[in-house]
């Protein structure tokens, strides 16, 4: 049993027990000579197998999707589809999909549901909501709602936030990248975009761009001949492919960054002209960094990276023409994450790599006009409480861990009694699953909109089956800043079974809920009572914006047409329908080599735009709140572990997107389950061999997982991939396979953005 994590083929070849119970696609059952007479279409669509939204063409034969191919016209995805994108067919035709509306008939979590009609499901939700909102005297914030999918998120917020009136919206931001977004925004006034393709020297801390693909970054790294330096406590594929791999202690990237800043300042390597023109409080930064003596020797003692190497990399970075320190994405590792991301932004700024080729660019994205809606005002609705104790926090999505903690401790200012959960597997996506379960069990109503019977869906009272991305048209989206484009997700086939698009689901809900909920407001809201007196019931309802279906008077297709034609014209609408994409140079695209294209001519790209901004070294608000105003190292950031403990870090395989793809029959065959990486020498000392079952225990829980001893991980570190260990028996391909990281990750969060810190859990191991 060798190389279980590496060579699938050679390892599995001898195994005769592999299931061959399904063919990979429907195409195998169709004779080619026959298909030529059939109705064949190539329909442009946007992928949704992960957050990237790459563009493809779906080959459809007689309303069956046979093959997904890359779309050459989209600058973002560069004419490629990744393994997950290719396996989208298997998400569409997954036999375990949610097919019909379901209402729970057993106890929560025991998996017993009955099939109902859409109307019965809506009616059930209405009855529960009317009771809850009436009992809460029209405080709409008693309903929390969350969404884990990028597309349609704003519409979802419009429905439950603007129309229904709840302040409690949660999304993936606080368990993903809000510190990075915030750090960039607060330091240079914009979240920006990283121009990987334009950089000639690229440093990446931890982000595993070759196994966690981001378009166009991952693709650009392959096609650009820049020098790549990777820091990681695990030798990932990205590290394997790097020109220089710097193994380091987990959570010490900030020490490396501080040392880079120290060397740049003391040796005057930084871009003096840029610093003079754009930096605010540079003197404070200089004093702080120099006084703290963040030397290369100091950083070596924290990171385990030799000081000579730190000096060499720093000199190369600041000597390069277009250096870029990559800011990461799924980024929140430890308490210092916000200041870590800020240190990275400052390094880029010191090199002058802001608003220019190869740096963090502002660019010029297309700004789509918003569809305006009439928003009611609810006097009784309570405000957000998830930001209590958080310095900044996201204006949009709440801090999940802070929110959950307050709900289960009953320290919320008002009771939260209902949750609407869309495409957000909260039972797997945040640390300490037991607490999420506890929170859901406190709800009087849990409604899940999803395509799959996820762990979260199996705790719902009502399950509403949403269709997959291949079965719906979505509203047009503006992508990117350097080479901006518009892209449209066209409908490839009609929704299967009784599934519906989110818009259709919300329309149905809105028709059912608008009037009864309006009546509750009329009962409690004095302003509304006055309006009714003044203008009558009907007019008060209409002009007050209480009709939840306002956005859905027209189909998504018609809304798109109206919006795009009005703002951009008919030709662009037609490009979006026929090619799925539009940008100004779409007719002039040049093939560089082997089906790899140039999109915007270089001189037309928005590397540098006119922008009045400053680089903020010092954040006063943080200082006033008792936090570091500048990136600072603290003793408790040191990588020190209790005896016989390991630090757990997580990541994922190239073939999985969190838990969303865990049941995909095609992807499953590449990584059927996860293994825990443990340093080979450590494993030898502990008599742990490949495939041995280990119990990993943290302060919150334990899991059982098989071992993969390797020299590619640091001695005191354990790693296993996120996205496995599902508890839903309805996911028949995934159930019982591997372990769930969030079972054992402790639910700590940093206080600048309220983000879960995923790499602060210590683990002990026991061999079974």
């Amino acid at each position: 049993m060798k190389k279980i994590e590496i060579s699938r083929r050679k390892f599995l070849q001898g195994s005769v027990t592999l299931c061959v119970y399904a063919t990979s696609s429907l195409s195998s059952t169709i004779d080619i000579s026959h298909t030529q007479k059939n109705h064949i279409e190539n329909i442009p669509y946007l992928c949704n197998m992960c957050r990237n939204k790459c563009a493809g063409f779906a080959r459809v034969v007689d309303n069956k999707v046979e093959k997904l191919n890359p779309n050459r016209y989209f600058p973002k995805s560069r004419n490629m589809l990744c393994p997950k994108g290719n396996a989208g067919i298997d998400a569409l035709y997954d036999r375990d999909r949610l097919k019909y509306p379901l209402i729970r008939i057993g106890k929560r979590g025991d998996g017993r549901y009955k099939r109902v009609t859409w109307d019965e499901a809506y009616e059930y939700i209405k009855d529960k909501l009317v009771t809850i909102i009436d009992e809460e005297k029209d405080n709409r914030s008693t309903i929390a709602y969350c969404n884990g999918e990028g597309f349609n998120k704003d519409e979802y917020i419009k429905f439950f936030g603007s129309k229904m009136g709840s302040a409690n919206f949660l999304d993936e931001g606080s368990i993903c990248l809000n510190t990075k977004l915030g750090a960039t925004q607060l330091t240079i006034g914009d979240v920006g975009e990283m121009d990987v393709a334009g950089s000639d020297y690229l440093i990446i801390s931890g982000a595993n761009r070759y196994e966690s693909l981001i378009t166009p970054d991952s693709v650009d790294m392959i096609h650009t001949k820049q020098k790549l330096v990777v820091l990681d406590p695990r030798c990932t594929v990205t590290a394997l492919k790097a020109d220089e791999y710097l193994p380091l202690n987990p959570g010490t990237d900030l020490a490396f960054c501080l040392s880079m800043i120290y060397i740049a300042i003391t040796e005057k390597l930084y871009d003096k002209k840029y610093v003079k023109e754009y930096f605010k409080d540079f003197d404070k930064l200089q004093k702080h960094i120099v006084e703290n003596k963040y030397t290369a020797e100091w950083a070596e003692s924290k990171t385990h990276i030799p000081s000579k190497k730190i000096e060499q990399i720093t000199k190369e970075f600041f000597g390069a023409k277009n250096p870029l320190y990559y800011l990461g994405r799924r980024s929140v590792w430890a308490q210092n994450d916000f200041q870590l991301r800020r240190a990275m932004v400052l390094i880029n700024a010191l090199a002058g790599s802001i608003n220019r080729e190869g740096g963090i660019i502002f660019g010029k994205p297309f700004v789509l006009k918003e569809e305006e809606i009439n928003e009611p005002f609810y006097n009784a609705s309570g405000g957000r409480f998830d930001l209590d104790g958080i310095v900044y926090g996201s204006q949009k999505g709440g801090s999940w861990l802070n929110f959950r903690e307050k709900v289960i401790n009953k320290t919320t200012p008002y009771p939260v009694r209902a949750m609407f959960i869309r495409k957000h597997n909260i039972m797997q996506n945040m640390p300490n699953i037991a607490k999420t379960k506890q929170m859901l069990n406190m709800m009087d109503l849990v409604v899940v909109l999803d395509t799959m019977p996820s762990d979260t869906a199996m705790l719902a009272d009502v399950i509403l089956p949403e269709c997959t991305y291949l079965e719906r048209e979505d509203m047009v989206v503006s992508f990117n800043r350097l080479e901006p484009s518009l892209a449209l997700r066209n409908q490839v086939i009609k929704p299967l079974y009784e599934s519906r698009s989110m818009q259709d689901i919300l329309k149905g809900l809105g028709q059912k809920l608008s009037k009864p909920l309006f009546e509750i407001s009329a009962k409690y809201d004095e302003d509304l009572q006055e309006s009714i007196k003044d203008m009558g019931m009907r007019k008060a309802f209409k002009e007050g914006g209480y009709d939840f279906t306002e956005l859905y008077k027209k189909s998504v297709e018609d809304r798109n047409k109206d919006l795009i034609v009005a703002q951009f014209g008919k030709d662009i609408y037609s490009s979006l329908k026929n090619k799925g994409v539009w940008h100004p140079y779409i007719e002039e695209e040049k093939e560089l080599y082997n089906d790899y294209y140039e999109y915007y001519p270089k001189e037309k790209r928005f590397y540098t735009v006119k922008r009045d901004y400053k680089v903020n070294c010092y954040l006063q608000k943080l200082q006033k709140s008792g936090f570091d105003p500048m990136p600072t190292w603290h003793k408790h950031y040191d990588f020190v572990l209790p005896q016989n403990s390991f630090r757990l870090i997580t990541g994922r395989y190239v073939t999985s997107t969190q838990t969303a793809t865990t049941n995909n029959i095609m992807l499953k065959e590449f990584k059927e389950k996860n293994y825990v990486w443990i340093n080979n020498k450590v494993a030898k000392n502990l008599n742990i061999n490949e495939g041995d079952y280990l119990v990993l225990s943290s302060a919150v829980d334990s899991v059982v997982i098989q071992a993969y001893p390797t020299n590619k991980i640091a001695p005191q570190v354990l790693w296993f991939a996120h996205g496995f260990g599902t508890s839903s028996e309805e996911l028949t391909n995934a159930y019982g396979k591997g372990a769930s990281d969030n079972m054992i990750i402790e639910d700590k969060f940093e206080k600048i953005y309220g983000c879960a810190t995923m790499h602060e859990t210590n683990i002990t191991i026991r061999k079974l």
Partner: protein
Amino acid sequence: MANYGMAFDYKLCINCHACEVACKEENGIDLGAKNHRLWIQEDGEAEGDFWNLDRDKINFMQMQCQECQDAPCLKACPNGAIYVDNNGIVRLHKERCDLTLACMKACPYEARYIDERNHVTDKCIFCADTRLARGETTTACQITCPAKLRYFGDLDDEESEISKVLRERKHFTLKPELGTKPKLFYLE
């Protein structure tokens, strides 16, 4: 009519499996890791201690039928089921195959597997009965690859991209000592 071959800019591979999934989806290959027309083989290992890893010996190699011009499988088949089609691709008369497995044993590249549904041996045929049959000029693996490292085209056409890249860059074939004359090339 063409003489198809493929060249790999193999060092660009990040082992993302897109080619493998695209192949299976396009050609309807059975699930299961042993059923495949192509695969990526991780050659070599990272050597040494974690803090001083030697990563140089690791390569991701694109493996599939090497389209030998002197194909051992063709010569080995007792039923004469294997032939070269007019695009220069080694193919199979499915009805003549009775699973003697002689071709599998003869292939020095382990390129064939047993297609359990059709009861024949199968291998990469450059999407000959899917994409090429529909008049397309790309293979599923080539077009989906994020690295665009697979050059596919007509070796007899001097103007084809593969011909140009083979003229311009050094390349090697697998197990040249066997004299099989593969039409798959690995670019240095």
